[in-house]
């Protein structure tokens, strides 16, 4: 075991960096990078590699595992209410967490290439329509938490980014996030995850266009225009590959630490519905023929917040019992995109009229998505 990098590659790297030939340079750079790694980092990389290799073989065997856990370990008879609920729980818990860890790590690496400061630079000076589309797309990959919505809003306004474009970002960033996508993919399959993502982007872009057309610049609180922002520090933009891996691991710890309890509770509730609620029970309340259920789902979903992680497993169980897909999508989008705390935060920078327009347009968009899916599916 080398606890310290041996001196030879360092010297070699230095000499080779001075050389003019490009291939030699590249190899030397790689050598230097490896020499810079500590023993702990190398161990971590090996562990990461092994985990990635083992991921799929484990993931593909979760179904037999869940039946084994429910029927053999807990000795519950298959086909009973309890047996159904318990095997559902043991299938979904490892499935969701395995997907979550893998995807958050991957998205973390991807996100280390983006930050709100850089996104602002990209969006500054773009025309309205192109800006709306770009902002919605960047909202997916830019790390964002609704607690920094206010500084972000000010930063965008100060860079001269149109208000509609800013809203396209503020809607897409929380709505099309990796937690929602992972849960949708794991529990509903890739089709619904893709539908959710494209509808989320569409609502963000359309709201951006509408708010842009309404010329609501004067509906921003006046003090926002008085803030002067400093120059973005240059070294924020650069990260080494090791830094990106660290960032991915940091994201996994942070996000899983924040949402694991909601997921366990949500899957627990979903498992209970799965085992005990009779087939077709939800059809009368959340079925296609109950047209009012779409707006009702949006109104119910708006005050709920950050429990998206816990709601999706419940929603899956509802869908299984006869709820319509459009209604369920509307419910989910409303919980994630419209949240009471975020509205309170944004009230600091927006006048009430603009807040009302924002909530109204997003809610209408979600209701339309709900109706559309109930009509075509």
């Amino acid at each position, binding site marked *: 075991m080398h606890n310290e990098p041996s001196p030879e590659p360092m010297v070699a790297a230095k000499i080779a960096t001075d050389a003019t030939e490009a291939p030699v340079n590249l190899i030397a750079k790689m050598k230097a990078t490896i020499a810079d790694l500590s023993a702990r980092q190398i161990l971590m990389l090996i562990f990461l590699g092994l985990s990635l290799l083992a991921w799929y073989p484990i993931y593909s065997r979760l179904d037999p595992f869940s039946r084994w856990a429910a029927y053999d370990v807990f000795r519950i008879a298959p086909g009973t209410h309890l047996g159904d609920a318990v095997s559902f729980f043991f299938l979904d818990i490892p499935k969701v967490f395995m997907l979550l860890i893998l995807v958050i790590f991957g998205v973390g690496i991807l996100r280390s290439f983006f*930050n709100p*400061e850089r996104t602002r630079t990209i969006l500054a000076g773009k025309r309205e329509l192109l800006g709306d589309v770009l902002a919605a797309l960047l909202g997916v990959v830019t790390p964002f938490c609704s607690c*920094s919505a*206010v*500084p972000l809003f*000010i*930063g965008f306004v100060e860079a001269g980014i149109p208000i509609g474009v800013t809203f396209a970002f503020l809607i897409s960033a929380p709505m099309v996030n990796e937690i929602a996508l992972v849960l949708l993919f794991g529990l509903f399959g890739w089709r619904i995850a893709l539908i959710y993502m494209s509808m989320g982007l569409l609502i963000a872009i359309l709201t951006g266009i509408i708010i842009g057309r309404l010329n609501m610049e004067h509906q921003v609180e006046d003090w926002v225009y008085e803030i002067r922002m*400093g120059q973005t*520090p240059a070294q924020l933009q650069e990260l080494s590959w090791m830094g990106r891996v660290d960032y991915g691991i940091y994201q996994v710890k942070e996000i899983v630490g924040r949402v694991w309890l909601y997921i366990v509770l949500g899957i627990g509730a979903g498992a209970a519905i799965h085992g005990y609620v009779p087939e077709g029970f939800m059809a009368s309340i959340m079925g296609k023929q109950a047209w009012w259920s779409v707006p009702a789902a949006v109104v119910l979903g708006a005050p709920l917040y950050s429990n998206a992680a816990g709601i999706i497993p419940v929603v899956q169980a509802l869908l299984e019992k006869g709820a319509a897909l459009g209604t369920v999508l509307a419910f989910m989008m409303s919980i994630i995109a419209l949240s009471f705390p975020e509205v309170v935060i944004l009230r600091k920078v927006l006048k009430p009229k603009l807040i009302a327009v924002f909530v109204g347009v997003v809610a209408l968009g979600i209701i339309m998505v709900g109706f559309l899916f109930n009509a075509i599916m």
Partner: protein
Amino acid sequence: MKKLQVLGPGCPKCTELAKRTAEAAKALGGDYEVEKVSELSKIMAFGIFTTPALVVDGEVKVVGQVPSVDEIKKMIG
């Protein structure tokens, strides 16, 4: 003397970063002045808009993350 500034409007993560920074400064035992900056216009004067952030002698070191005490020690040492 080194000047450490923890930027954040008061979210839970910001409080955590302030706590860890104070801990790191105490462990190193050097001459540090720790200041909490919560006023939005002052935070934005540093050119960032993701909080929490750590600034050492006017230089932005961390943005939007809460590093461990050991990592903070390296940044301020």
